[in-house]
């Protein structure tokens, strides 16, 4: 998948590779030209990725190569044992979760899981949970809380699945119950929005003591396409809607709805996954440390006050 904005950069990078090839194969010294082009590429990169529009970020957040929940589980956690099922209806592959260790400490980790290709995406339902996905998450979080284990959640979903059976099995109840549950679990809850934060389907596992968001992730009350088709009856105006919805990490930070924006490698998380994992790990480690020092009732009071303040209003 190639983004519109990065096309000139990819073109330049291809040229550099060609020159390097010639340099090596033909023994012609092109190092000066190569250096020049590399400098240009770097400038171009800074130019492109320093001025991303909200819509560009939506594309980056949805990028198929962007690290997904299980990539973070693999690189940030050890001893992961995946646990399945909601004990009512089934197991939702759009949500993964299990016990693991974070820097040696036993914990629970869970998140939405998108697929890397069409086949896996079909199996994972594109990361869109059914009610049993939220209920599995709820069951695992209750388990973690009973044993005093901190909870890490990773958000990456277009939204809760809008299907007949999902509605029949109470999608609305499943999300609401998780919100109520997460407001009162007496263990630290840390959330990272790693890609797409799609409305209630995202929030359903994201009521937390700390909500961190990667720089190019987006988190929105409605998809830009959905917003455009409701407001202007024209899904093609999604770009405009993306700008209006305030869905970028910077806007969310300004409104006090997320706690920290985590910088991504230039060009997005998928261009340097290892660097991204390091950033996320450092941030989670730092926040967990401060939360572990807090007493149970103080933790819950702080969580309540944090959400209590999320309103912007005026007086008549």
């Amino acid at each position: 998948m190639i983004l519109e904005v990065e096309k000139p950069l990819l073109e330049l990078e291809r040229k550099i590779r060609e020159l390097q090839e010639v340099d090596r194969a033909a023994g012609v010294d092109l190092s000066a030209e190569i250096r020049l082009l590399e400098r240009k590429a770097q400038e171009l990169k800074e130019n492109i990725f320093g001025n991303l529009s909200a819509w560009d970020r939506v594309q980056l957040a949805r990028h198929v190569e962007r690290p997904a929940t299980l990539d973070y589980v693999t690189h940030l956690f050890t001893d992961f044992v995946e646990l399945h099922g909601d004990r009512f209806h089934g197991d939702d592959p759009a949500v993964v979760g299990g016990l693991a260790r974070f820097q040696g400490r036993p914990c629970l980790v869970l998140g939405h899981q998108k697929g890397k290709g069409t086949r896996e995406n079909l199996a994972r339902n594109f990361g869109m949970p059914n009610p049993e996905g939220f209920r599995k998450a709820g069951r695992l979080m209750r388990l973690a809380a009973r044993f005093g284990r901190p909870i890490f959640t990773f958000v990456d979903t277009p939204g809760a699945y809008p299907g007949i059976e999902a509605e029949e099995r109470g999608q609305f109840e499943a999300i609401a119950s998780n919100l109520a549950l997460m407001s009162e679990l007496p263990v630290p809850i840390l959330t990272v929005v790693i890609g797409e934060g799609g409305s209630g389907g995202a929030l359903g596992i994201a009521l937390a003591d700390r909500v961190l968001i990667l720089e190019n992730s987006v988190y929105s009350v409605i998809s830009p396409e959905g917003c455009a088709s409701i407001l202007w009856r024209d899904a093609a105006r999604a770009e405009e809607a993306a700008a209006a919805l305030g869905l970028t990490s910077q806007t969310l930070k300004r409104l006090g709805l997320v706690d920290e924006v985590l910088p991504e490698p230039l060009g997005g998380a998928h261009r340097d996954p290892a660097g991204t994992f390091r950033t996320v790990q450092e941030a989670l480690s730092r926040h967990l440390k401060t939360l572990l020092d807090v007493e149970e009732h103080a933790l819950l009071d702080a969580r309540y006050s944090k959400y209590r303040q999320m309103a912007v209003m005026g007086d008549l």
Partner: protein
Amino acid sequence: MAGLFDSLRARRPRVDKVATPALPSDHWVKCSGCGNAIYRASFLENRKVCEKCSHHHRMSARERLELLADPGSFEEWDAGLVSVDPLGFGQDYLDKLKSDRERTGLSDGLLSGACTLDGIPVALGIMDFGFRGGSMGSVVGEKVVRVLERAAERRIPALLVTCSGGARMQEGMLSLMQMGRTCAAVRRLNRVPAPFLVIMTDPTTAGVAASFAALGDVILAEPGAIIGFSGRRVVEQTIRQKLPPGFQSSEFYLEHGFLDRVVPRSELKDTVTAILGMLAVPAEVGR
């Protein structure tokens, strides 16, 4: 094309703009449920329920208040809280807020306050579809939270009447967060414990259905109300097939176990007071 008209027909009952006087005289209203003309005075007498087909037409928050609260018992809370435009959506949005305020006489999409129901003190909140489709932004969320918190402080029941298409899009993520904070406030009320009753009316969907509305200790719904998480159109587009009749109605959710009762409007107050009478009194008295 046939499919398009089918879906328009299937959706028709949902666009029930409240009883517009479609007939030559103001004395008659046309029921959007059955299309029959009804004499306005008897329509209002019948609490906006069609005498021919029993279709429950939408009521404003003030009409609901009159239906539920003991006369003269209501003291309004937070009447001065108004929505702003935190994301800079634009003048058009601010103008709509202003005209909705003027038309409904409400500061935003929820009317709240203290009142009694058959003498039982209750913290009451009523959503009004006439104000931006009852959508929940900061003000609606804040007022819901305050209703729940005041009920908890006073150890009295909270009653919320929902009527909303979901989150207020123009407040972006601030609206989404109202889901979380209202749910957190419900849990605090649960711990008191004080009863939390919800009456779902048409429509109760998306961010409101998927937050405090779903958490009532007892959840009642009016007949034929549209309830659900995803919009009908979105579901249809996703699965590319026709939806079963009655999909996402009160009766549908009663059948699937997510509601306690579907209650006709004429029995609503009696049902609520009967339940509150058994839950709201101190445990010692109940024993």
